[in-house]
Each structure stands twice: as structure tokens, then as C-alpha cells.
């Protein structure tokens, strides 16, 4: 890879020949996924870092122009694959904004439940992997065991462990069952204990604290100017949270707090994530006890959500709706308009910019990926720190390559 390295580094490298050039990735355990960074080192200190991405670019947005609004949800699963449910919800939130669909209260609560569970599993993996990179393997195992429990809930809910494809336009695939509610209740009961254990493992752990404090500091102004969102921005003191600022899915009904820190370093990002898991648990506890009765999908007469089998076989409206939706060149009516709609996922603001052209296939399905925007900040964060800080910063940013490259 030496030849490629030379072309990617800037021209000034020739004058500064005493600097080392180190190629990091694209297949490196600490990157977790496929990203490549060309580092310029002065001894152990990082002078410059040039990220080189695209090692997982699979044309998601092009594919979005060929799959219809319900089919594309399978592709969003594979976007941020550590919290697929949140992506499903974000995609169909955008589609429903375009179509002007008002969901049923029950569906909103189900979606709140699954997106908060997805947020917890996202934060578990990102803090777990950060612990793994800084030497805390036990912490990673604790996190992964709880993720398996969330997988279990999702499996009971929709049959798939983690590429769920659970939402549909105007509703969800299956209604939530009492067994799932029971499992979520058990999770809410068990999880705080593990969370406490995890916090005890790292919060005052000398090695971890020393490796993450004052490393990769991002100030509030920089965070805003560089478009950061989610835990990264909130660890720098930006209070923006789409759930509070532009409430969707009835988030305004829930009592929760936006967790912020001021330091903006790696430890603050870790700390904000741990605190957010507690807030998510609060939302989960409120939502699971108050799931409204009624149908999960919107009515048959709206002609957007697929009717149930019983409706198809026993009512004429159901049959017609099913026929209209399933036939190739029919489907629902979509305005020739463009919308941008965003959700707060574990990683930050996940937005979709959809252009509809009347057919049931999006004309343009742009995704605003938080990982992409956060990774652009990375060279700024790592400059001046040592090589061993690199994995801590990378872990705290939680870069998911499939979302980064799409």
C-alpha cells in the first residue's frame, strides 16, 4: 500500500521527510469496520490524519431509486447495522412525512419502544467497543450479553435477530404481542443492574479515565460548525436533540432529559452514552406500561398499509386495497414533492431526504448519515495526540462503516 499512501498524503510530505507515514486500515481490528486512515507521525505523535473511506460503498442511494417504499426498509437495516430498528423507523418516518400519514397511537408507541431499544443496543456496542479498544474486555462482554437480550426481544417481535425490517408504511409488520411486552418489562428490570456494574467497571477506572480524558476535545462551536449531532455534539454541550426540538412519534408525551456534558472529550462521549441509556430506560418504562389499545396499522381506507389477511379474505375493501398495493404499477399515491425528515438515532440525527415522483418508488432517497459527518471531524480530533489515543477517539465516535459509506 506504500504507493497509494504517497498519493493520498499531501504534497508537503516531501519536505517533511522525517515524518513517518503509517497506513491504518482498511482491515484493522481497532477500526471494527472498513475504514482507512493515512497517518503522518512525528515519533508517536499524530501530525496529520487523512481518512480514506469508501471501502464499503455499496450504492444504497442508487438502490433506493429502484426499490419501493416498503422494500427499501430491508436496505436501511444494513445501513447502521448495530441499531437497524432505529433506521427502519427513521426511513418510514420520512416516507410518512412525504405521504402525510398520521400513525395510530399504538403504532407510535411501538415505534418509540423499538427505537429506544435500538438506541440502547447502539450505545452498548459503541461503549463496549470503546472499552475493548482501551483494554477493558470484560466490559465488552457485559455489553454484548445485554445486546443478546435485546436481540431476543426483537426476535420475539418480528422473527429476525437483527436485520428486522419491522416497520411498514403506515404501521408495522406485526402488532406487538404480550410476550414481547413481558420480555421488555423483564429487560427494564434487569438492565439497570448491569448498567451499574458497567459503570463501576469503567467510570472510576484509572486506566480508562486516563486514556480518555482530554483526548479528542471538540468544543461546542466546532461541534455546531462541523454539523455534529447526537451524543458527540451533546458531549460538547450542544443541547440539540431531535426528540425534544422537533418531536416526532409523540416524544413530547414522555418525561426524559437530554443528557449533555461540557468537556467534549472521549470520556464525556462515553459518559453521555451511559447516561442516555438510563434515559432510554425511563422512556421504555413509560411507553411499555401505557401502550394504547386499538389497531397498530392505519385503516384500510387510507390505502397505504397492507390489510391483514382476515381483511383481505373477508371484506371487499380489504381485497381491493391489497390488490391496489401489491400490483406492480399501482400502489399508493405519492406527491411530486421533496421532504427532509430526521430522527434521533443512537449515533445522531439520521435524516432522509426523499423526492417523490408520483410512483411508489422514491425518485431520490438521500440519507444523512451521522457516521459520515462525525468521521469528517476525526482528523481535527486526533491532531496532536499520540497513536494510542487514536483507537480511543475512533471508539468514542462510533463509526459504522456501512452507514459511513452507504
Amino acid at each position: 500500500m506504500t504507493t497509494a499512501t504517497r498519493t493520498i498524503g499531501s504534497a508537503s510530505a516531501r519536505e517533511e521527510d522525517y515524518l513517518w507515514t503509517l497506513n491504518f486500515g482498511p482491515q484493522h481490528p481497532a477500526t471494527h469496520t472498513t475504514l482507512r486512515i493515512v497517518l503522518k507521525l512525528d515519533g508517536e505523535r499524530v501530525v496529520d490524519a487523512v481518512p480514506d473511506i469508501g471501502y464499503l460503498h455499496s450504492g444504497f442511494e442508487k438502490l433506493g431509486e429502484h426499490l419501493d417504499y416498503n422494500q427499501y426498509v430491508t436496505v436501511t437495516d444494513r445501513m447502521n447495522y448495530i441499531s437497524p430498528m432505529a433506521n427502519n423507523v427513521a426511513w418510514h418516518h420520512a416516507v410518512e412525512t412525504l405521504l402525510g400519514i398520521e400513525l395510530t397511537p399504538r403504532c407510535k408507541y411501538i415505534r418509540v419502544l423499538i427505537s429506544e431499544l435500538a438506541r440502547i443496543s447502539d450505545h452498548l456496542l459503541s461503549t463496549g467497543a470503546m472499552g475493548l479498544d482501551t483494554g477493558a474486555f470484560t466490559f465488552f462482554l457485559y455489553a454484548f450479553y445485554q445486546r443478546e437480550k435485546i436481540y431476543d426481544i426483537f426476535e420475539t417481535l418480528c422473527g429476525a435477530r437483527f436485520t428486522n425490517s419491522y416497520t411498514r408504511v403506515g404501521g408495522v409488520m406485526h402488532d406487538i404481542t404480550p410476550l414481547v411486552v413481558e420480555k421488555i418489562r423483564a429487560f427494564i428490570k434487569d438492565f439497570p443492574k448491569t448498567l451499574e456494574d458497567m459503570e463501576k467497571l469503567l467510570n472510576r477506572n484509572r486506566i480508562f479515565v486516563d486514556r480518555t480524558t482530554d483526548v479528542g476535545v471538540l468544543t461546542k462551536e466546532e461541534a455546531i460548525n462541523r454539523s455534529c449531532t447526537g451524543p458527540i455534539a451533546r458531549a460538547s454541550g450542544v443541547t440539540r436533540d431531535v426528540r425534544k426540538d422537533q418531536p416526532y412519534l409523540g416524544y413530547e408525551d414522555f418525561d426524559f432529559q437530554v443528557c449533555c456534558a461540557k468537556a467534549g472529550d472521549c470520556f464525556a462521549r462515553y459518559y453521555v452514552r451511559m447516561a442516555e441509556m438510563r434515559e432510554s430506560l425511563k422512556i421504555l418504562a413509560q411507553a411499555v406500561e401505557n401502550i394504547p389499545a386499538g389497531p397498530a396499522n392505519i385503516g384500510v381506507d387510507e390505502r397505504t398499509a397492507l390489510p391483514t389477511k382476515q381483511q383481505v379474505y373477508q371484506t371487499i375493501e380489504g381485497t381491493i386495497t391489497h390488490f391496489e398495493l401489491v400490483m406492480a404499477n399501482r400502489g399508493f399515491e405519492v406527491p411530486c414533492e421533496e421532504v427532509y425528515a430526521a430522527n434521533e438515532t443512537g449515533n445522531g440525527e439520521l435524516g432522509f431526504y426523499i423526492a417523490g415522483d408520483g410512483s411508489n418508488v422514491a425518485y431520490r432517497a438521500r440519507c444523512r448519515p451521522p457516521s459520515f459527518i462525525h468521521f469528517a471531524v476525526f482528523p481535527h480530533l486526533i491532531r496532536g495526540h499520540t497513536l494510542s489515543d487514536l483507537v480511543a477517539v475512533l471508539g468514542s465516535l462510533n463509526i459504522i462503516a456501512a452507514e459511513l459509506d452507504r
Partner: protein
Amino acid sequence: MSTLSEVVAALKDRFAEVTDSEFRGQTRVVVQQSQCFDALSCLKNEYGFDMLVDVTCVDYLNFRDATDRFGLVYVLAGTESNLQLTVRVMLNEPDLTVPSVVPLWEGANWMEREVWDMFGIRFEGHPDLRRILLPEEFAAHPLRKDYPLQGRGERHNFPVLTRAEA
């Protein structure tokens, strides 16, 4: 703190041929290509749109009743005012060049590189306008509507390793 309608009215006063529309509660304005940088910098510096949420582009080649080829989209948000505004700039071949907004928002750097990579729109004054997702030697801009979904054979243009030689 001004409301969104006041911002749009002020923009219309300052810049010629600004049109606005609203859909599902989202306000969009279309500004001219020549005035795009001035309008965006005015929005940032005077009306508190301090965050650039997204930069993207739409290719209107097959879009019904479309008169322009490309529509460049800037989604702006104000972190204090909690307003959101979509600014669009219509572009036509052969002049696919707009001034880069990296001097205003650092976050635009990679987003503009992605738009260049996918649509071939040049951003003047961008510090480092290279392809970002596709390999440097790739010749097309794949999100344009005249590029096929399955590509033109680039994906299989590699030597094959067999057991004997590996």
C-alpha cells in the same frame, strides 16, 4: 429571534428571484446560482442558521415537468432558534459550478466531496475536492440518472486468484 416567515421575507427583499414554498410544514426557498453563497452566508451570519444539516443533490433528468437538470439542496438549522430551512439551487449543464460553503461551515467539507463524487458538481474554493467514496480512477458519477444501477462492468474488472497461484 425572527420567525421563519420573516427570514424568507427578508431573503426575498435582499436577493432577486427568490421563490419559496411550503410542504408538510417545511419551508423551502430556491435561490439563484450566482447568489447562492451570499444568501447562505446571510442566513448563517444574520439569522442564526449556524448548523448545516445536510448538503445533497437531486438529478431531475426523468422527473416530470422538470426544467432544470440538478437541484442542489442545503438543509440548514439554527441550534438556538430551532428553525429549519431548506435552500435549493437549480443547476444546468454545462455550468455545474457553485461556490463552496466550507468557509461558512466546516461540516460541508465531506458532504460537498460526496456530491462531487456522486453527481459531478464542482464546488469552487473547496480545499480538497477529491472523490470520497469511489476509487480515484472511477470515471462516472453514479447517482446521475443516466448511469445504470448495475454499473458498466467496473465492479468485476479485477484479476482472478486461483488456488494454484495463491
